[in-house]
């Protein structure tokens, strides 16, 4: 009969419509911003710089190696290396970025900078409401705005941050053990 298919289809629509009053599976909308979904741990929006301890200037992990600047696909990172050095987490003197800018309007949230960073210094933030009425200054983020403490990293990516801390502690232990290592070597040579 002509129109039978349409009636069947409308039956399906009715089932979904009335079903949306009783079951959550048929009503999937969320009333943002009053209701908010919990972001998954892997969420990535925009990079930030990590610093240890309480002092942003002293604790910044970045050593201005410029790998992320080179690898960044849309080239949104600008780094200027410092002239003097400061000690890093393991006590080794390193350069630090005198200037570290990221252009928020250019960044495409791809996470390549995080992947290539050998110092675990840059990570992805989950904050996403970044709109501003200042088109130029408000979208070009400087070092002081990008830097966030390690504790903040622990709140947004707990599993990942714990793994990173472990790895860094291991590296630090290795670096501290190193001055002793050559002595052990010479000792072995002497025995031979």
């Amino acid at each position, binding site marked *: 009969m002509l129109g039978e298919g349409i009636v069947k289809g409308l039956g399906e629509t009715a089932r979904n419509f009335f079903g949306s009053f009783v079951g959550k599976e048929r009503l999937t909308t969320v009333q943002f911003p009053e209701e908010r979904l919990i972001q998954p741990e892997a969420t990535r929006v925009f990079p930030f710089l990590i610093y240890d301890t309480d002092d942003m200037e002293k604790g910044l992990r970045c050593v201005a190696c410029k790998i992320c600047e080179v690898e960044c696909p849309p080239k949104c990172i600008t780094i200027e290396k410092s002239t003097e050095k400061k000690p890093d987490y393991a006590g080794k003197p390193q350069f630090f970025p005198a200037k570290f800018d990221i252009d928020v309007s250019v960044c*495409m949230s791809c996470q390549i900078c995080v*992947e290539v960073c050998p110092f675990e210094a840059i990570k992805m933030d989950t904050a996403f409401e970044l709109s501003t009425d200042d088109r130029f200054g408000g979208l070009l983020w400087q070092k002081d705005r990008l830097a966030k403490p390690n504790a903040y990293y622990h709140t947004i990516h707990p599993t990942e941050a714990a793994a990173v801390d472990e790895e860094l502690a291991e590296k630090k232990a290795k670096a501290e053990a190193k001055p002793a290592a050559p002595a052990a070597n010479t000792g072995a040579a002497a025995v031979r």
Partner: protein
Amino acid sequence: MRWGTASADDRMVEIAGDPDGGELLEISMGPHHPSTHGVFRMNVQLEGERVMRLKPVFGYLHRNHEQIAEKVSYLASIPYTDRLDYLCSMTNNWAYALSVEKLAGIAVPERAEYVRVIVAELTRLQNHASLIGFLMQDMGASGTPLMYAFREREKILDLFEQLSGARMMCNYMRFGGVRVDPSADWLNGVRALTGAFPRFLNEFEKLLMENEILISRTQGVGVLSRELAVNAGITGPMLRASGVNYDVRKVDGYGIYERFQFRVPLGEHGDVYDRYMMRVLEMRESVKILEQALAGIPGGPVMDPKARLRGLRPKAGEAYGRIESPKGELGFFLISDGTTNPYRYRVRPPSLINLTVLEDMCLGRSVADIVVTLGSVDIVLGEVDR
């Protein structure tokens, strides 16, 4: 179900006593038209309602994709491939990773191959579901089927977000494997979704399959003959709707596809209805592949430990890697000159090549049929214009 026997010619109206003395009316559909799926323009020449000539005009979304990829390193190109066909970033990543792997001779661990198949088939499910929604939208079913499709798509995108951190721009695959090892929780999430998906498909079919309006608007419309489809290099569901048994998953068996049991659905008429049915049937086959892949996924690493991401310098040479993306054959052709950037980077986009036969499918039809035919081609302008 096939309904009625009206052929294409019955519905055509002869225009008697044309007051314009046979002159054609030229109109421009797009680039800002709700039915053009993006910034795409069609120069249509009409005689009354009848299409006499149709010229597709591309390029409004040109972003210099290939040139950019030649200027950045192999690794930095991966996020750009997400933005080709922005509905299916996972398959784009895979095609690119595959060609770099061919070029540099990188092996992929077993687990990563399974994960790739899982995310690619999930991508196919969400692409086909939303395509059917959009096609219905073009026919005037404003909202309902599209929203039902998007409800399902949202679940898949949530899974992608849990895995890769982004819903659409996944940037997930790497040459030599995948970036993140999926957790057991995530795999259980995919299992739950795969189990529930046939129910959605049944519901979707009930909603649309016997709908008389859908049938009369699609059967016999936009017919693409088998010969033309082969000659024009059409690939994907559009080619198979014309009855040509060609699926890169079967022909090349890239990745580990030869291990899975699945059928390749084929159409007979090559019209819009067949193309629509092709998507529904392919979704059912994808569910089968997903079930097998989820049952067989082994443990182990997801990244080749020897693979080098940053500063990769493949030996001078060339490679072409292709996969069956949801829209057709997606290929990347790379020439290396031994430096960190490809010397030449070329994309073979299925959307663009499938679009070239649009005129042949629309000639002699009415304007309303152009919209439906274009909807059935399944284009994404990010890939057409690059």
